[in-house]
């Protein structure tokens, strides 16, 4: 059956293995030869978030199949690229996961795109012949799921070094994020987008946490219009795409179109899947021995605190048993903590708005005898000295300020680990050491690649 040839063709494939689903996508869209010409130089944007296992990053099996089909179609150069989201250099991730050693024999190369060169990605995608996006779909606290339009980010999502104060009222954090994520698409749209939702991480994501659960949907979505592909993906995942800030932002910027989408392959309605999305209310993330109090919060603090609380839940079981009680206060004017002990003030709003709160000061009372009474009692044995109650006011030292708007995740882990120390927080201390390991993996053997 011939399919209408429009730019808004979106293919949905369902198969018994991810590779069969990928092949089906290509068949539905017209084989790789339709996208790749002889001697094309191709840049493939993948997810390479952290040196963790699947499904945090794009499946390597899928990447390898894509490289093979590009080569078969005549591509001369294939480069892969990504930005990590936890402040880890791509070359460090490569040194651990040996991606180049895996893809180089197939004729591809992983580029070390780093955040210090803003125009680097732009240069690459403007100079390559074809620009592909292969995106792993998982649940995401901010945008419901990790859409292909998030994949092209030139930003370090969780560890922004920028100190710009965000306006709580206008939720500028999310707006700024949307604008940064879409900036690339204003310059050049990808020629092929694949959203891999064959396996989707639900519950807690997009990194592997205690509440993460992997479900097999057997689905993959592909097309040439990023907005249309993400639109269909959201629909498949049971979300209303028209409420998604990225889709709204993309439509506002005329990056894509949500009308006239022509779905080919399996039926969308009957293929919809039920997904458990990330907790939208931070208080609902149950962390042992930890009370979470939020005031007015913008998506900046919500986003980073979401990850922090999940890290605590996943790795700090023992620490929180030792600590016995901890309160995390987030946003402007949060409620008072249950106890004045181990109060973590997360973000500038929480720090500033609680400056005069009662938990900041510790009042202790002490019985004391004035000196004159003491002397009198020495001479007059029968007379007991008058004891007076004296109130002492001290700043509460068991308060930890985590500055930032929003705070940087890595620095937050470091501050909390230092605050509790290795005796009280052995698990977090190990986690912090692990983070340091992949942030500081030796650069000796690193090579800089390029298209």
């Amino acid at each position: 059956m011939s399919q209408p040839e429009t730019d808004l063709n979106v293919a949905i494939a369902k198969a018994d293995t991810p590779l069969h689903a990928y092949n089906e996508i290509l068949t539905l869209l017209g084989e790789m030869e339709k996208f790749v010409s002889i001697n094309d130089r191709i840049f493939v944007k993948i997810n390479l978030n952290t040196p963790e296992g699947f499904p945090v990053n794009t499946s390597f099996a899928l990447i390898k199949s894509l490289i093979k089909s590009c080569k078969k179609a005549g591509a001369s150069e294939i480069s892969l690229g990504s930005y990590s989201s936890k402040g880890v250099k791509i070359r460090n991730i490569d040194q651990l996961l040996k991606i180049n050693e895996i893809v180089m024999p197939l004729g591809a190369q992983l580029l070390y795109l780093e955040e210090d060169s803003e125009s680097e990605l732009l240069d690459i995608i403007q100079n390559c012949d074809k620009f592909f996006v292969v995106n792993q779909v998982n649940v995401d606290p901010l945008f419901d799921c990790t859409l292909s339009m998030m994949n092209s980010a030139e930003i370090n999502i969780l560890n922004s070094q920028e100190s710009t104060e965000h306006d709580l009222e206008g939720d500028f954090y999310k707006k700024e994020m949307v604008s940064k994520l879409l900036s690339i698409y204003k310059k050049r749209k990808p020629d092929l987008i694949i959203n891999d939702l064959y396996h989707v991480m639900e519950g807690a994501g997009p990194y592997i946490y205690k509440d993460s659960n992997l479900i097999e949907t057997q689905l993959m979505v592909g097309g040439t219009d990023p907005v249309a592909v993400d639109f269909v993906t959201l629909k498949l995942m049971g979300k209303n795409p028209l409420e998604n800030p990225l889709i709204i932002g993309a439509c506002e910027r005329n990056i894509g179109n949500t009308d006239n989408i022509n779905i080919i392959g399996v039926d969308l309605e009957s293929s919809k899947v039920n997904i458990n999305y990330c907790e939208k209310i931070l208080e609902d993330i149950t962390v042992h021995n930890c009370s979470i109090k939020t005031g007015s919060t913008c998506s900046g603090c919500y986003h980073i605190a979401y990850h922090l609380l999940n890290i605590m839940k996943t790795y700090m079981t023992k620490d929180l048993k030792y600590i016995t009680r901890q309160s995390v206060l987030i946003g402007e004017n949060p409620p008072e903590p249950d106890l004045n002990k181990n109060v973590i003030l997360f973000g500038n709003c929480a720090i500033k708005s609680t400056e005069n709160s009662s938990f900041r000061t510790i009042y202790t009372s002490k019985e004391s005898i004035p000196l004159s009474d003491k002397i009198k009692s020495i001479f007059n044995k029968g007379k007991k000295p008058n004891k007076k109650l004296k109130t002492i006011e001290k700043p509460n030292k068991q308060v930890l300020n985590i500055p930032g708007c929003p705070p940087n995740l890595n620095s937050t882990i470091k501050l909390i680990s230092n605050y509790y120390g290795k005796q009280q927080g052995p698990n977090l201390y190990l986690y912090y050491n692990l983070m340091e390991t992949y942030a500081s993996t030796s650069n000796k053997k690193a090579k800089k690649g390029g298209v």
Partner: protein
Amino acid sequence: MINRYFKDNWNKILKFNSKVEINENPELLEEFVRIPLTPIQIDAFLLYRLTELIYPKFIHDQQNIADIILSDYSIDNMVLESYVYETKIAGIHEKAIHLPKNAISITPKNDLDNIEGLFIRIQDAIIKENGIKIMSIRIFKKRAIDLLNTHCENLKKLSFNEFVSNLLDLVQKCIGNELIILYPEPDLLRFMRELISLSQDIKFSSIYNLLNNLSPTYKHAISFNTKTISFTCQIEKEVHENTVEVIRPEQSPRDLEKLREANNLESVISLDLNTVINSLSEIFEQKIPIKMDQMKLLLQKFLFGLRSFDTHWKMYPRPKIYNVLIRYLIRLIGFNVNLRKLSHWNLPEFILNLFNSNIGLNSKILILLTNNRNKNIQNAILLQFLNGSLVKISAVNKTNVIDNNLDIKEIHSDLVETLGHIDFVFKVDVDLIKEIIEKFIFKIYNVSPLKQYKVLKMTKKSKYLEVYPSSPAYELFKSKSSLSLLKLLLPIFIDKHEF
């Protein structure tokens, strides 16, 4: 139809069982039988007591059983033989009633697909004919009987290791090919069937032989105790052969020191039999693949058992690691190695979460067992994980690269063609495994912090352990010195105070 050697022993067991109730002091009946399907001699009354304890837990807890032998061919009535056992106590077989040829009929179609309906029909037929209400059936295909017979015929000729290998193969064949059907199906049988399908082409006997080759020579005893039973299993491995001996209850003193001296043993472990049975039945209740949460729970229980030295288990000689003075001295230099405070509640969750984030929720891991001395790879096993649960274990056929090459990177890239993408290759040398098995299992009584430290140092050498590609946890493990690694890990492994 049934092998004579097996039948004679079985009849002896039935005869003894029927005497127990009418005898005032059955424990004084000094009779010996073999544990069915094994060459191991055991006091008949001890076997009676053990069956009384184990059968209801693992097989079926109600009385009266029917055994049916079915033809392998689709004939009109597949029943070749059938017997009924009237059991006053679940599992204690006393007398077999041989049913007439056509008392029960089973047709090839429908009947075996609807086992519940078949059971009800057989139950009704036996009540009508014999007035006995059976509560379970055991169906043996003729092929299973043939295999059992061959196994029993060889029992006298086989060495102990050969017997264990044969028995494991027999169990794998009978359960894996559904040659034995029990209704109601016990958890043990379902668990074994799922385990067999998880481990695919790996023979249980080869796992046994591998573990046997990796273990040192030893002579230990395990003393099992309950309020009513006490017996000892003496296990010995000499250079080429193993032996197992079950020592009669009255010959097995509860004093471990005396037991050790009397039998010239390296060490004696005392376990509460009820705890062992309950733990095993909890394992058998699990569905395979075992879900992550269940796995955490099982590991928590295992570690809790391990830390409960002197309460749930005892050992003589007492492991050095429990010596207060040694522990105190080590504490002085900054290490807390009190195994009684092993963090059983925290460790499984922490380790599995770390494993998941480093390895991934879906992954394929190739494990290569190398032999550095012979410069070859002994075994290659592929593990597949799905959503953090182990779903498949398979043996990998050795290729030229695996045979002649110890370079983990080359092996990784070579196997991609045949096995698809492999996430990690772990290369572990048999010497390291031998060291761990010897130090931490067979000679645990002798394990000192210094020996633990030596094993840790070994694991840091790529000659003994290598991972490709790497992961943050492995990088951290390699980058730290053994001492600072201990400092980092011990506070996680050992609790500061009891909770």
